[in-house]
């Protein structure tokens, strides 16, 4: 299959998934009992004000018409407007895109931290299989999976900001302030990837081409990192890609602990304010990012493993 048709097919199935998710979230937000007007308008609103708000939110239309309206807002790039007073408030998309860079930076930095820590740990555990190094790596990985991110993030703030004062703490947004949140987001990923790298490397290290590379007299670092790791990387990359979603959701928790702006903070604010257009829009944007990242990962396979390109 050519790259073009592969990309087209993946984009098609991705679009279908996004549409499915949109309909699903739409259904939950609109069909479950609970009136957003009560919350937005407050107790003293006149029937006219309520009707106005209902019209602004589009709630006076049928569910089907509302869905079509939302899809229209997706097409025009605004993702809807915030009620009441839509003229004087930024569109939902503007509100989301203003904070999106913070979350993307956090998720990507978290992924970088996860991968940078996991690869050496996994390779080391595979090479020193069965020794104390392997056990230590396993215990580190298990701790990374077991300790809840909320606890890890709280302790990280307490130790590195409050006690030692080494790193910037909550509410700061500079590049250095990204480090601590990124470590918190990346630790769980590190744990999963290091286990994956270890088992993948253990398999690859027994392959003939690794023996050949050693027999040729290549330095061990070259054998490990160029010949073995490159081939062991495929399943690791798959898991890393699949975990991007959990990085985004991890970012929601870390954003709360560090009081950082971002998609998570916006989503939680919108939920508290019962601002359904923003809830719907944020969920939609996260779904799109997630689907696009997965397509990107699929394409990246081809770069790492030429066999996949031919298939």
């Amino acid at each position, binding site marked *: 299959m050519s790259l073009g048709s592969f990309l087209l097919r993946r984009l098609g199935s991705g679009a279908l998934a996004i549409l*499915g998710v949109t309909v699903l979230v739409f259904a939950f937000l609109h069909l479950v009992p609970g009136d957003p007007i009560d919350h937005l308008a407050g107790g003293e609103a006149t029937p006219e004000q309520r009707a106005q708000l209902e019209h602004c939110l589009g709630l006076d239309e049928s569910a089907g018409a509302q869905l079509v309206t939302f899809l229209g807002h997706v097409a025009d790039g605004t993702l809807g407007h915030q009620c009441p007073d839509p003229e004087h408030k930024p569109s939902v998309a503007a509100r989301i895109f203003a904070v999106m860079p913070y979350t993307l930076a956090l998720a990507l930095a978290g992924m970088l931290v996860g991968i940078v820590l996991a690869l050496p740990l996994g390779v080391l555990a595979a090479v020193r299989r069965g020794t104390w190094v392997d056990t230590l790596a396993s215990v580190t990985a298990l701790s990374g999976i077991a300790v809840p991110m909320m606890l890890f993030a709280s302790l990280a703030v307490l130790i590195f900001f409050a006690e030692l004062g080494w790193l910037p703490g909550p509410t700061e947004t500079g590049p250095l302030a990204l480090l601590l949140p990124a470590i918190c987001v990346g630790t769980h990923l590190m744990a999963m990837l290091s286990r994956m790298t270890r088992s993948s490397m253990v398999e690859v290290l027994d392959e003939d081409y690794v023996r050949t590379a050693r027999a040729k007299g290549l330095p061990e670092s070259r054998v490990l990192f160029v010949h073995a790791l490159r081939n062991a990387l495929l399943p690791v990359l798959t898991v890393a890609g699949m975990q991007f979603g959990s990085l985004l959701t991890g970012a929601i928790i870390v954003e709360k602990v560090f009081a950082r702006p971002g998609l998570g903070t916006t989503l939680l604010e919108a939920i508290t304010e019962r601002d359904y257009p923003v809830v719907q829009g944020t969920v939609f944007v996260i779904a799109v990012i997630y689907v696009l990242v997965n397509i990107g990962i699929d394409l990246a396979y081809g770069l790492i493993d030429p066999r996949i390109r031919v298939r």
Partner: protein
Amino acid sequence: MKAGAVMFAVFVVLGLLGPWLAPYDPTHVDLALRFLPASGAHWLGTDSNGIDTLSQLLWGARDALVISVCVVTISATIGLAIGTLAGWYRGIVDEVAMRIVDILMAFPGILLNIAIVATVRRPGLGVVIFALCANGWVGYARVARGQVLALRERDYVSAARALGASGPRIMFHHLVPNLVGPALVQITFGFGAVITIEAALSFLGLGPQVDYTWGAMLAQGTAFLWKAGFRTYVLVPGLAIAWVMIAVNLVGDGLDPRKRGTL
């Protein structure tokens, strides 16, 4: 594996007996007793409302157990049923089921949980359980379908069919018993996943609206992290969650033939 099973058993026993073992009422507010350190009367101290921390921990274990057992049972039942039907009947049933699975997997699960819980102002246990089940079944369905697709070609299934056994009979008597093994690994990890997600929802203020879930305790611990003498509070629910997570990972890896011996 054995250590994991023992750790998990401790969680189950404490979850079952917790409310009877708890020395105090986990909702009894006494502001005169705020932020007390550990003592003979309050083994783990008290929280910002003067509530006994040990009692919160034990009642929280009950909630964690109830939610995880309900979500895992419902999700596994629905998932195994859908996966078995999809794998057995194939065709349109399979196509529809797998497209739904694809949609739910093409999406960070906790976000859907949040979207569902967000629709209710004060979610109770029931809403949280429903939200977690909404996409919890997907993994089970995938595994079950894959297994059934492989199993339906086996000789004993052909033999049962030749003997005139009906589709439902083959599914329930011949296929489902063979799904239990692989599903068990998933069920084990499912407990950990449910407890983590529920804790995250509670932490974000979207969980069951009580103060003693482990997630709500974590949120309180984080909020009062700056208070000297109260810093160990956050460790109590955090380590409780870590305890269950270590247990399910040890048991799950022990049950999984692919991972046996890696930890």
